[in-house]
């Protein structure tokens, strides 16, 4: 921050002229212009003069001798030598000066501290310019620097975005600047009011990007780093900031993995490569690397910026944890100025964005009749359509869901004095679930303070605390829990009896065959709550040792406390009952602390710019978990652990740590040629003594071609930069103590008492080492037309090596865990493209940002089995079929879909072929392609039929603004991948045991030769429909209109009084339109995070569409 101008100009008692010589007069005047001009001071000052033909200079000297007044003028002023006559007898000095200069081209100005400046008339004439600075959407921008161009004279806008500045005559223009915004130079001319709309700096070449242990100007970056500013983060009604990232940054894929209201996402940067380790990026919040990628507790409104470090040259500073990329999160910092308050109120309604179409009761009845007929069972009860039972048609999806109200209040504040800035917030979120009996609340609090004590010392502290409370429902799974329960239970039972109580059938006799429970019982009766408390923060001390050399100490911590309580009550409803209640209570604690010491050197020697960093870091994670369950109560009031009679408990306590040294050197010559080298030396407790340390180096070069003289003549080109990088990073997330053979518990009994037993749990591998990741990347950044077009394109080739693969050993080894060895390698190659344009500027403006990423994943080697055959690692088994849908095999993508190919059903006339192919097969039965052409149905008919990983994904945001109105439309897409719809595998196979999807109504009969397999209940036909095949594998490609946002800023003139500075209203519609062929609830619904079992939709907590109104008021 700039010092107050007056302090910079010491007012000398004498010798003014000497000073004046060394300065441009105009500049001095500019400095002085902020001083108070006063006439009062001089009213008492009188002079006695009687001179003739003396130069003005001499006359003034005489006046100085008679009074305290000092004159201030430039020697260059020839007029000062002009000879004049003056006669004054105890005359007021002002009058005398008026006389002297009345006919002169010079004039004077008298200031408070007995200083009078003499200067050419036009220079000393000042005028006041006022105005308001707003963001593109009309929000006032406080803290914007307003400077008279070419000077350091300036001011800041206030909380309402208003400023007022005295501009010396002759000043040509004002420059407005703000971090993250394009600086603007506005010609003053005759204007006295200048209102400015700041535009985001598309190029942002001067913008600083947070990289590990420091910041770098964007133009100086040699690696692949993408940033998301506050604007973009705030522009969407987000619950978590994974959501904010989604579709915004090339190369970063965010997928909802289902689960709950708190949001459950997976983030992968540039593909995935680790089989047994994590594929999550490292998250660093204000310099604190988090223990896990779970950062759902952080209030999105607190985020200043997110910077994604994608390639090895950028991430290597985090060494052993950087293989999956790094996301740097910076929370908001205060800025100098008076207290500014921002109140955000978001109110909205959510609804399930899609429901499944299930059979009507009548359709299901007909399915029963056909299936039972085909399977030789009695259809008696099902034959009579007039039975009152068939008149019931309960829509369980409707019964179990609700329109949910969502409210979010956020109060942000910030400000600062000369040396200390502060910023903070308080936020409350209350979100009802769209599943009944679920809801979510979060309270969060933040305070960031930084203080510059003197030239040498700066201390800053960031602290965030949050508390979450959630009432949750069962997670997604195959069976009748979670949303599945609404689909799978038959529609011909009533949810409630005449008294409004939950009801259920009390017999399994026909027609209540199969799934006839009331899914509301499991949804509404149990109590399931969980809480998360988190404190995350750091304190950093910067000591400036010498110019350009800063020693920093940073200490940070992240404490996450989780607890949960679940009670399954005693009940008896129809044939469903629970005789005993049970309680489960769990608690988990994660304590993560980090201490860093860094020495940072930043200096320019002519055209040589050097930036160097050396550091040392220690980090420790401590994680404890306990889980206690008890059962036995028969009274629902007695729902605590102490009321139970049978208990079980588990607990763990794991500590791990890292000790690291790191260094980075960035050199550039003339902002043209760049060289970056990074190295980190990590020691980790996760490895045995022999492999404890790893070295992770990286290097990159960049060439700003646009700075070359031969391109200087091209006006439209702002920046053209070529980047090339290569480096090694690691993945240490392999679980703790995998290198030793552990004694596992193997309890036995003597005399009816349990005795401690132990047994080898694994075969320890003392040679385990880091997974490593070798990455080559090349990229081009281009900026044209003063940043109106900004584009960047990257290519990468990422080889994950020494992957930890669990290699199967014979069962004769006698341990349950296969040994883990470093042998696998995966490759991810890809292209990323980002384009930001300001298509139209002016009153009506239109900006576009677009990004798309292509990634190809390939398994190069995952080892061999004992026979020397390439290993194949199957994914999770799909229930019912008891076969996996995914298979990982060298030469293919990880977790490729490997299964039979559906070929419709056998039709009439194909009896002989069907029988030859598979004995009992007959018309109407499922038919699978005989890929190996051997005429029979066997395992050789399976093949790779698609990948669960999108071949491409991206997003596009268009924003249109006209005066106070702004409309933004955000599209998000992904394509070239498949999703295995397990819901259809269970509910669309023409087996009436469960309620079927509506699509089954077209089932095969001799009269209706469709391709929906013929109904059956048990036997060959049923087991053939269970098979994992392409019948249930669907194209997941989608295009979503993720978000449509309309904002209106109240015109300034309509705001009365000083209290409110601005108010903005935003109406948002999210997730209203999805274009996809996928028939499930959400094509992104991959229920599993495991690399080897991707793309399986187990019907997670349903995605919602949201309509919300946000009001933002600045005070």
């Amino acid at each position, binding site marked *: 921050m700039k010092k107050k101008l007056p302090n910079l100009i010491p007012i000398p008692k004498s010798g003014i002229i000497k000073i004046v010589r060394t300065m441009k007069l105009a500049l001095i005047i500019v400095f002085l212009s902020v001083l108070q001009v006063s006439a009062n001071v001089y009213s008492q000052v009188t002079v006695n003069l009687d001179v003739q033909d003396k130069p003005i200079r001499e006359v003034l000297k005489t006046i100085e001798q008679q009074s305290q007044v000092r004159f201030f003028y430039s020697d260059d002023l020839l007029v000062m030598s002009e000879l004049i006559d003056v006669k004054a007898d105890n005359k007021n000095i002002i009058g005398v000066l008026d006389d002297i200069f009345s006919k002169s081209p010079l004039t004077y100005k008298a200031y408070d501290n007995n200083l009078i400046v003499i200067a050419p008339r036009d220079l000393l004439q000042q005028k006041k310019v006022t105005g308001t600075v707003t963001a593109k959407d009309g929000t006032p921008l406080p803290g914007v620097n307003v400077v008279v161009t070419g000077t350091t004279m300036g001011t800041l806008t206030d909380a309402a975005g208003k400023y007022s500045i005295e501009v010396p005559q002759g000043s040509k223009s004002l420059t407005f600047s703000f971090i993250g915004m394009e600086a603007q130079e506005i010609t003053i001319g005759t204007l006295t009011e200048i209102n400015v709309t700041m535009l985001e700096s598309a190029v942002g070449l001067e913008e600083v990007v947070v990289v590990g242990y420091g910041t770098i100007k964007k133009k100086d970056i040699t690696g692949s780093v993408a940033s998301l500013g506050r604007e973009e983060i705030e522009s969407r009604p987000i619950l978590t900031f994974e959501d904010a990232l989604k579709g915004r940054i090339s190369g970063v894929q965010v997928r909802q993995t289902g689960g709950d209201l708190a949001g459950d996402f997976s983030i992968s940067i540039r593909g995935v490569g680790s089989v047994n380790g994590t594929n999550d990026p490292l998250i660093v919040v204000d310099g604190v690397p988090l223990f896990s990628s779970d950062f759902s507790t952080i209030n999105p409104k607190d985020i200043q910026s997110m910077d994604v470090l994608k390639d090895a040259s950028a991430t290597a500073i985090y060494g052993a944890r950087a293989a999956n990329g790094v996301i740097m999160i910076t929370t908001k910092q205060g800025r100098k100025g008076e207290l500014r308050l921002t109140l955000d109120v978001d109110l909205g309604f959510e609804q399930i964005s899609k429901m499944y179409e299930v059979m009507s009761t009548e359709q299901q009845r007909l399915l029963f009749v056909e299936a039972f007929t085909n399977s030789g069972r009695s259809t008696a009860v099902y034959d009579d359509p007039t039975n009152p039972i068939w008149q019931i048609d309960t829509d369980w999806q409707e019964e179990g869901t609700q329109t949910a109200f969502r409210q979010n209040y956020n109060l942000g504040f910030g400000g600062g004095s000369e040396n200390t800035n502060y910023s903070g917030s308080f936020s409350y979120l209350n979100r009802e679930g769209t599943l009944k009996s679920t809801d979510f609340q979060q309270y969060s609090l933040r305070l960031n303070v930084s203080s510059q004590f003197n030239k040498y010392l700066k201390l800053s502290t960031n602290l965030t605390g949050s508390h979450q409370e959630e009432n949750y429902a069962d997670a997604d799974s195959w069976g009748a829990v979670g949303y599945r329960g609404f689909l799978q239970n038959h529609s011909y039972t009533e949810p409630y009896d005449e008294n409004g109580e939950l009801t259920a059938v009390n017999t399994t006799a026909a027609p209540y065959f199969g799934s006839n429970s009331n899914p509301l019982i499991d949804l509404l009766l149990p109590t399931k709550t969980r809480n998360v408390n988190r404190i995350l923060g750091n304190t950093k001390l910067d000591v400036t*040792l*010498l110019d350009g*050399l800063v*020693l920093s100490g940073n200490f940070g911590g992240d404490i996450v406390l989780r607890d949960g309580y679940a009670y399954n009550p005693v009940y008896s409803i129809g044939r469903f009952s629970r*005789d*005993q209640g049970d309680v489960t209570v769990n608690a988990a604690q994660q304590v993560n602390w980090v*201490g860093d*010491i860094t*020495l940072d050197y930043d200096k320019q020697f002519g055209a040589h710019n050097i930036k160097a960093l050396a550091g*040392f870091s*220690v*980090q*420790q994670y401590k994680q404890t978990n306990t889980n206690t369950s008890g059962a036995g109560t028969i009274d629902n009031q007695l729902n605590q652990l102490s009321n139970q009679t*049978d208990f*079980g408990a588990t*607990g*763990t*306590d*794991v*500590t*791990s*740590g890292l*000790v690291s*040294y790191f260094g980075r050197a960035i050199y550039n010559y003339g902002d043209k040629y760049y060289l970056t080298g990074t190295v980190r030396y990590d*020691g980790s*407790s996760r490895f045995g003594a022999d492999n404890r340390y790893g070295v992770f180096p990286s290097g990159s070069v960049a060439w700003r071609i646009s700075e070359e003289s031969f391109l200087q003549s091209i006006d439209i080109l702002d920046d053209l930069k070529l980047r090339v990088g290569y480096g090694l990073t690691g993945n240490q997330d392999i679980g703790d103590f995998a290198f*030793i053979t*552990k*004694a*596992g518990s*193997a*309890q*036995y*009994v*003597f*005399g*009816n008492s*349990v*005795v*401690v*037993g*132990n*047994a*080898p*749990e694994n*075969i320890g591998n003392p040679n385990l080492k880091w997974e490593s990741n070798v990455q080559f990347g090349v990229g081009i950044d281009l900026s044209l037309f003063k940043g109106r077009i900004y584009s960047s394109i990257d290519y990468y080739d990422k080889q994950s090596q020494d992957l930890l693969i669990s290699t*199967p*050993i*014979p*069962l*004769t*080894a*006698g*341990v*349950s865990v296969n*040994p883990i060895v470093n042998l696998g390698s995966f490759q991810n190659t890809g292209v990323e493209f980002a384009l930001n344009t300001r298509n139209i500027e002016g009153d009506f403006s239109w900006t576009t940002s677009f990004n798309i990423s292509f990634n190809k994943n390939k398994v190069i080697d995952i080892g061999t*089995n*004992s*026979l*020397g055959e390439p290993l194949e690692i199957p994914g999770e088994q799909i229930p019912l079929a008891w076969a996996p849908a995914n298979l990982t095999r060298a030469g293919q993508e990880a977790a490729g879909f490997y299964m039979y190919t559906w070929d419709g059903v056998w039709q009439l006339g194909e009896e002989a072929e069907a029988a030859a192919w598979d004995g009992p097969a007959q018309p109407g039965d499922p038919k699978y392609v005989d890929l190996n052409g051997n005429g029979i149905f066997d395992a050789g008919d399976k093949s790779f039929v698609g990948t669960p990983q999108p071949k491409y994904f991206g997003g596009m945001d268009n924003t249109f603004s006209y005066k106070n109105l702004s409309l933004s439309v955000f599209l998000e897409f992904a394509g070239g991948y498949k999703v295995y719809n397990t819901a259809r595998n269970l509910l669309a196979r023409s087996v009436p045991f469960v309620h079927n999807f509506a699509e089954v109504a077209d089932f095969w009969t001799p009269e209706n030769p469709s391709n929906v397999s013929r109904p059956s209940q048990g036997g060959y036909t049923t087991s053939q429909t269970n098979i994992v095949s392409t019948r249930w594998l669907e194209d997941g490609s989608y295009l979503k209109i993720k978000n449509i946002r309309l904002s209106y800023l109240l015109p300034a003139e309509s705001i009365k009084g000083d209290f409110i500075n601005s108010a903005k209203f935003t109406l948002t519609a999210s997730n209203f339109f999805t274009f996809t062929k996928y028939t499930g609830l959400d094509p992104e619904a991959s229920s599993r995070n495991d690399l080897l079992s991707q793309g399986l939709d187990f019907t997670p907590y349903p995605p919602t569409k949201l309509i919300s109104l946000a009001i933002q008021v600045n005070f």
Partner: protein
Amino acid sequence: MNNNINIEKMKNIKYIIILSLFLTFGCENILEPPIQGAVALDDLLLTESGIITAVNGIYEQLLDQYQNVIVIDLELASDNAFTWRAETQYDIYNFDATLSNFQDIWTSHYTGITRANTVLDALESVEDYSSEEMKDAIEGQAKFLRAFYYFNLVRMFGGVPIIEHKVMGREDAEQPRASIEEVYVLIKSDLDDAITLLPTEYTGASGMEVGRPTTYAASALKAMVLLELEEWGNAAQAADAVIGNGALLANYADYFNGSNENSEGSLFEVQYGGTEGGTTSQISRYIKPPDFAGLGHPIPTDDIYNGGGGGLSSGNSFVQCFEPGDLRKSVTIANPDIPNFIDPTQLDGTMYFMNKFWNDVDPNLLSTYNFTLIRYADALLIRAEALNEVGYVADGEAFDLLNETRTTHGGLVALTSADLADQAAFRTAIRQERRVEFGFEVKRYFDLNRWGILEETIQAQMDISDPTGETVFPSENLISHPITGKDYFLYPVPNIEFINNAELGDQNPGYN
């Protein structure tokens, strides 16, 4: 930049280096955090108390096997029970090498062997044995259990890989199949050692709790092994070492109802206890009738359907094999007064279910009743059978031994040479006696196999339930036992082993 500043800078760097070094040394413990809740196995095996826990771990595999898999599958495979459920594979011998239960049995037994090997390899690492007896007992138990596990394996799968030391990596586990003879060499040697090493009784002190096998248990197991190998004289002799060092219980039910565990009538039991699922037995869940929320896996064979509705291998047999008045019948099987769900045309109470070990006291069917593996009765009947094979002696010692269980447990009259006139008649009687005495104690299948009569017995059952003759015993899976020369049925080695162990060798005949 002037010199002063440079010096100042040097000073600062010195401090930083000192600080870094200090931090590094201060941080060593960060890289070697203590393991909580788990220990490195090698550290555990340095003390007597530690190695005792490793010995206890060897037994643990018995808990799982004898509440479900091995009991259910081998009783179904014998002529004692059939099933109405999906597990018909074992019942009608229609299975392949991928069936998970074989894998389960194989894995569990090798897990036990690995644990025994771990203890045996660590015997000399322990620095603080409290007594030589304790060390001997530890070694004796490990060898006894290793022999026990190998004996089950060799009887089910034939020659299996011999692993005698702890597995340090993939190579150690990839061993070829040994011959049946080689496996028996190891079993006998281990049992001979165990007989010498194990105490005659346990004090009850820690590590010496009652329920661990005594030298008599080892002798009885050896007698079982020798009987299997038809070394009649040796078997009789080994059994004789036990006889007189125990006694039959007056009440047959007391072996199985938790009231008299590890009694003088019992030599080795799977010890169930505690309150949790891991250490208790859920066998009742598998044997209870479906009407009582059980699974009713094995259902005693019964001729009430006359082959018409009982199930695939049901036939004349187990329910009828009890002589009238045999007190053991109502202990072994029961017919609760519930509808006959297999054949609703029959009267209520016509379905028999397994009753031995049934314990529904706990609402979650967590039973603490021990499962009997070797009883005093084994020694009696082994010696009786062996003596008869050595030579029939009218009303000789073999008669006394046979009659001891008949009269004491069954409440039946003693048999004499008038009833059993020759060796063959006595043989039939001893086979009958073994069947009723040891019903559902996982002995019948092994007996039928060692007698070489498995095929004829099972085929007879199949013929009753499937008069079309399409259900056929897979005689291609029989071998000629290399020691006894009898037809001997072998289960398939789990298929996955041939993929994960290139050294393994050939699958058992008839499974490819």
